């Protein structure tokens, strides 16, 4: 039984890894690099925190 479980574990791992690779490829081809890397640190702070105490 344990060997069967280990084969199932390999199969699930391979399926999920392939899905992530597929989604990665799909995402990178559907969006521009500029948009995917457009996140900026401190966006919320720039709006909400004035730091006048």
């Amino acid at each position: 039984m344990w060997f069967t479980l280990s084969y199932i574990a390999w199969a699930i791992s391979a399926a999920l890894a392939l899905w992530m690779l597929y989604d990665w490829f799909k995402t990178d081809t559907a969006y521009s690099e500029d948009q995917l890397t457009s996140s900026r640190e401190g966006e919320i702070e720039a709006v909400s925190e004035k730091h006048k105490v």
Partner: protein
Amino acid sequence: MSQAAQATGQVPAAGQRISLLRVLGPAHVWALGVGIVLVGEFTGWNFSADKGGALAALITCWFVGILYTSVAMIDSEVTSTVAAAGGQYAQAKHIVGPLMAFNVALYLVFAYTMLEVSDSILVGDLMVTVAATDGLTRHAFVVLTIVVLAWLNYRGVLMTLNVNFIITALAYLSIIILFFSVQPWSQGVVLKLNELVTPQNALPYGWIGVIAAFQFAIWYYLGIEGTTQAAEEVRSPSRSLPYGTMAGMITLLIAAALTWYVCASLLPWEYLGFTFFPLFDAARVTGSPTLEFILFWGTVLSAVASANGCINDAARAWFSLGRDRYLPTWFAAVHPTYRTPYRAILFLLPIALAFAFIADLNQAITFSILSGVLQYTFMSINIVMFRNKWPLGSIRRGYTHPFHPIPAICLFLLCAITFFAIFLGFGSQLIAMVIFYVVVSIWFHFYRYRFVRRGDQFTMPWPKPKGY
């Protein structure tokens, strides 16, 4: 992007900015911090008994508890003010400077990736132990743990930390059930503390054994500082981060005390310092199949929760390095649907798998501890600089930690003791790791920093620091 779109994770239209999602609350912060750490009660801390005996494991539990309480307080103050993914990396960047920040980010990535590797090895070993089947290896279970958790992290932070909250709570509950099942109120019925820990064997190697025990006592609380990596994804950083971190630290102090008491009362110190599964073995000693079953799953769930939180944190640190151009900006991509740093998660996945195959548990644990202690040492210096440059009243803080600078001094001294303890046990690894950080620092200073947009990296809308 509109706030409504951000909150629901809608797919952004062309040209809209893609950011991490602010969807987490204090319970998620607790789940992240305690989830990473709790595995340390199920394995790791007990090797301190091997270094100095059962009493040394208790003494270091208290002192390392002071170290981490200082870490939690200092972290809560700084991160409630510098609320950005990358946690201590973003703190170091704003308070100390880019070179320190680069090093801190590497400490974070190393500490969490090696801890993730250790956790997955633990799950694999536990499965093989329970299976007791000739020829069965741990590899399939190790790979399954890492890949499933990477997939979960890839799909979104809210589900990742909801899962972590549930499995961490279940693992914690298993410790509580074990504690009350062994009738802790009446020594001698099940627990035999006075027989197992006697004046003759309490400190078998004397006080130097207590010092040496610091190295593994770190495992009682290693990783609670990971709460700060969620800073950019919590709805209210100034409230959620201090609340979740301090609640997590209180939870862990209780768990550590209960764990030591039960294990030291059921297992001789020689065995306690040798086994990889102290709580599971303590449950076995009681002779109750129910307790054995509960603690087996408690151990598995704690390791899974820890690996899950580690993937989350290592990816955010790596992502932050890319966003500031400390590494190629390619790593700074956010998934347009799931709003996760998906390239950082995918990049670190094969690295974790490789280490899980080539490293053994002790090596992985030691590299994780070393990187962690380097980071804590930085934090003690960081808070002093933070208070000097931006004194109380100059900027808004979500939390102000009391008794400054006593926690910083305690933290620095306890880190120095821990470094000495690591040097006693793993001196060559300590030296190798320090050399590694020196080499990458030289690479960063003389080569990589030319690609950094120097003005863009400082994002906090703070006044100029005092004296500048």
